[in-house]
């Protein structure tokens, strides 16, 4: 059987894109790109209303998208083995910068999160770790036997916990937890036994109250208090959550109409173009608008998992899945916060919220996923 004949007979997903496919040659995954563009267009549409019809805001957001897409496109050109090679280096640099942040970082709002890099500007090292941590865990398991042995689990946990502790020290508990999660999901993908998962969940249930009393900072404790009982201080800490729930609830099934949300446009809703933009969407476009957004998100996550499913080496598979799940966790945490299911943690709604370096980080992740998908080779 000639190789061409062999290829012809393979199921389509194993055959890979044809050489005539422009997207394939540019190392871009068309469905994923389409999903991302749809979400971003939708996001700009909401941001126009949330930002008070400010065109400049949209222009600045577009600039970030442009930077993000460039990063994505550039990363997609490299084969996954390049990422695999550079992962430990990236992780090492990130770790050093996290230590530096604690020593010489720029302080803002009671936390040291930024590092000033001459000629580059302000930089948040934890943003780098959002990719580096899952990548190193995936790298660690690249040639290990699965399911992981106890020793491997301990090493993987160390990879995760060290940066998480450093970030928690800044203090930025929200990001620390998110980064820890992004590393832990790789462990899960690697086949961590359900018994250990069950034990961990039980441990967290016991440890959480202890954390509250002995580890948390006052401002963190206040956030938890507010989450548990926002009505206790309706004008102070509880204000955000009460107003965002009111915005969502008053939107109803079909919403108040684009540009007609009273909660956001009359400034009752705080942070309406950044962390709480989901409430603006919910208020103006209603449940139907939310379902459309969730559908787009689900499509993107599904495509990422599909890519991961068909990835050809362990590193790629684990990294791809890890990035996809991290993306989903951001959605979950943001929507959960805005709708009053989770405590207030400063997490933007992926690809929708205005500003932040997170857009670039996220698109960099998607660039790696595209690289994974478009650099497949046939296994003989």
């Amino acid at each position: 059987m000639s190789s061409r004949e062999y290829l012809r007979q393979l199921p389509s997903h194993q055959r890979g894109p044809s050489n005539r496919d422009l997207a394939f040659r540019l190392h871009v995954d068309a469905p994923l790109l389409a999903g991302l563009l749809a979400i971003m267009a939708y996001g700009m549409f909401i941001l126009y209303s949330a930002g008070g019809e400010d065109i400049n805001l949209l222009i600045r957001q577009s600039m970030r998208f442009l930077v993000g897409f460039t990063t994505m496109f550039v990363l997609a050109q490299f084969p996954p083995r390049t990422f695999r090679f550079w992962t430990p280096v990236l992780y090492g640099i990130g770790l050093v910068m996290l230590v530096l942040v604690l020593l010489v970082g720029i302080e803002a709002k009671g936390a040291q999160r930024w590092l000033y890099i001459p000629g580059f500007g302000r930089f948040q090292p934890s943003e780098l770790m959002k990719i580096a941590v899952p990548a190193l865990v995936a790298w660690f398991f690249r040639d290990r036997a699965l399911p992981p042995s106890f020793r491997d689990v301990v090493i993987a946990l160390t990879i995760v916990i060290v940066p998480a502790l450093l970030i928690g020290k800044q203090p930025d508990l929200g990001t620390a937890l998110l980064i820890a999660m992004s590393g832990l999901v790789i462990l899960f993908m690697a086949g961590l036994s359900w018994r250990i998962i069950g034990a961990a969940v039980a441990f967290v249930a016991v440890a959480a109250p202890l954390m509250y009393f002995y580890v948390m900072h006052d401002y963190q404790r206040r956030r938890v208090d507010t989450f548990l009982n926002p009505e206790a201080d309706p004008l102070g800490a509880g204000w955000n959550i009460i107003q965002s729930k009111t915005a969502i609830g008053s939107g109803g099934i079909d919403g108040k109409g684009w540009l007609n949300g009273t909660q956001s446009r009359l400034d009752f809703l705080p942070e309406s173009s950044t962390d709480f933009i989901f409430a603006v969407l919910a208020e103006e476009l209603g449940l139907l608008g939310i379902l459309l957004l969730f559908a787009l998100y689900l499509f993107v996550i599904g495509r990422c998992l599909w890519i991961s499913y068909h990835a050809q080496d362990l590193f790629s598979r684990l990294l791809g899945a890890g990035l996809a799940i991290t993306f989903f966790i951001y959605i979950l945490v943001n929507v959960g916060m805005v709708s009053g299911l989770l405590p207030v943690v400063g997490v933007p709604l992926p690809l929708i919220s205005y500003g932040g370096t997170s857009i670039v980080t996220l698109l960099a992740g998607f660039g790696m996923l595209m690289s994974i998908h478009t650099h497949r080779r046939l296994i003989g």
Partner: protein
Amino acid sequence: MRLRDRQRESQIIQMRLIWTLAFVVIVLGALVSRMIWLQWLQHDRFQALADQNRVQTQAIAPPRGLLLDRHGRILADNQPDFSLVVIPEQVRDLDAALNGLRELISIDDDQIERFHTQLKQRRRAWEAIPLRSRLTMEEIALIAEARHEWPGVRIEAEAIRHYPHGDLFSHVIGYVNRINAEDIAAMDEATLANYSGTNFYGRAGIERQYEQRLHGKVGYRKVETNARGRVQQVLEEIPPVPGEDIHLNLDLDVQRAAWDALGSRRGAVIAIDPRDGGVLAFVSRPGFDPNLFVTGISLTDYAAYRDDPDRPLFNRALQGQYPPGSTIKSMMGLAALDAGVTDWQRTIRDPGFFNLPGTTRIIRDWKRGGHGVVNLHTAVVESCDTYFYDAGLKMGIDHIANFLAHFGLGKITGIDLQGELAGILPSREWKQRARKSAWFHGDTVNTSIGQGYMLATPLQLAQTMVVSARRGKQIVPRVAMGAPAAEPQDQLVLKNPDNWPRMEAALADVLHGQRGTARAAGHGAQYRIAGKSGTAQVFSLASDVEYKELDVAERLRDHALFVAFAPVDNPAIAVAVLVENGESGGRTAGPVARAVMDAWLLDGKGSLRDLSRPRLQPDEGATP
């Protein structure tokens, strides 16, 4: 081996990927169900909350009705004023905001305390609480500059009460001031709603008496506001119904004449038109500036009023109770005639004292050496005490008490002002009840010249002249124009109605006769006046230690009284004048009464005007 291993590993990851997808779908489902809960099942509740956020119902205070004198001249109106108000719901740290504002403009402890009291009271949410009134332009600029620092603090324009004549009408018109907890507590729900935009409440005088009519009906404005309380648009407006303007019977010129005639002396003047009971002048001096009370009087100003020995806050006309003295002699004479114990011909010899029958007790006449031979006419004209000692004793206290009650003594007149005192018309029953003691002849003797237990307010004295002028027909005095109070059924009918004109002639001789005690007051009058002077001995003040240091001699002098009505043949004004420590009724109080009567009865050229027409034509009234 390695290949098999890879397959197994691949299966593990593929299983986990499927698990992951399931997890994602389940969690998204959970989020969707949360949205359904919020947006579908709880939609109505959140819709209401959002509207509550956005839509504020603001009460619009109705403009308070004006007070006008009988010719339409303004006695109380409303003027714009800028005040600093706070909406507590919008202030995150109230104490910090208050302290910050105090650094900016002067706000005294009083105002802070009043603010806190009002904060604790039953009030509508999002309602502004006034912190300081009468901001100057400078202060407005200072606050406007710093207003972004304190959301919920703003400057509001409001109409505040203004009394253009200051203290002139203070004791009759009274004043309004900030509505307080007691006012609110006394209101039912409907009234409370009607006052939701109102910051002022009638506190005294006419302002209090006619509060309901003056207030009007509250209006509402539904507005959309943003989170900082700034109004974005008006959604709906129900305009307030302004309070009713109230025309008073008071005449600015008569009031001013009375005020000026009293001068710097302490006292009271009441003038009533006996034809309709309309109160023409109601003066108590010293007065106070009601404008100071409107936005809350400062402690210093209040202490000055409270500690002033002249007691400017004391309403002498309504609440000052004085022995009426000789001013009741005409009524006492009519009582004696009606009882049949004397007539116009009968004479007695007055040696200057009266010997209480059956005792050795001597009671002196005010005139040493006595009046000689006197009949009833001369006894009234010259104010002979001995004549009335004798007559009083002959008719007895029961008859006196019954007869004088017809003139309104011993009971409130029912004037449309609150806090009126009733004085004392002594009787056997009264003494038994109040003093737990029997009635003695000596008491009757004292009562017959208006001394002893007898007390009356200047208003009551004016009322005795109203009844006298109307020849026994009572009428309730009214400050406000409009429907008069129900006519009292009680009417004094003399056994011989001719005694009315004969007594009026005697009273006229008090001013116009050669020997009248108030000849000076009657001199040069363009009309005939019936009047009677009186002096009230100062009992209570003599023992008032507090006053002694000031001017003991002055404060111990008798109070001068004068009552009158005029013109005799067609009475159009009844007057009572009290001058504290004025000594001589005829010489001190009489001229005051005359000035008041001239102001009411004379036209611009100084002759008696046509009393059937208003004193001023409408176009004259327009120019103050």
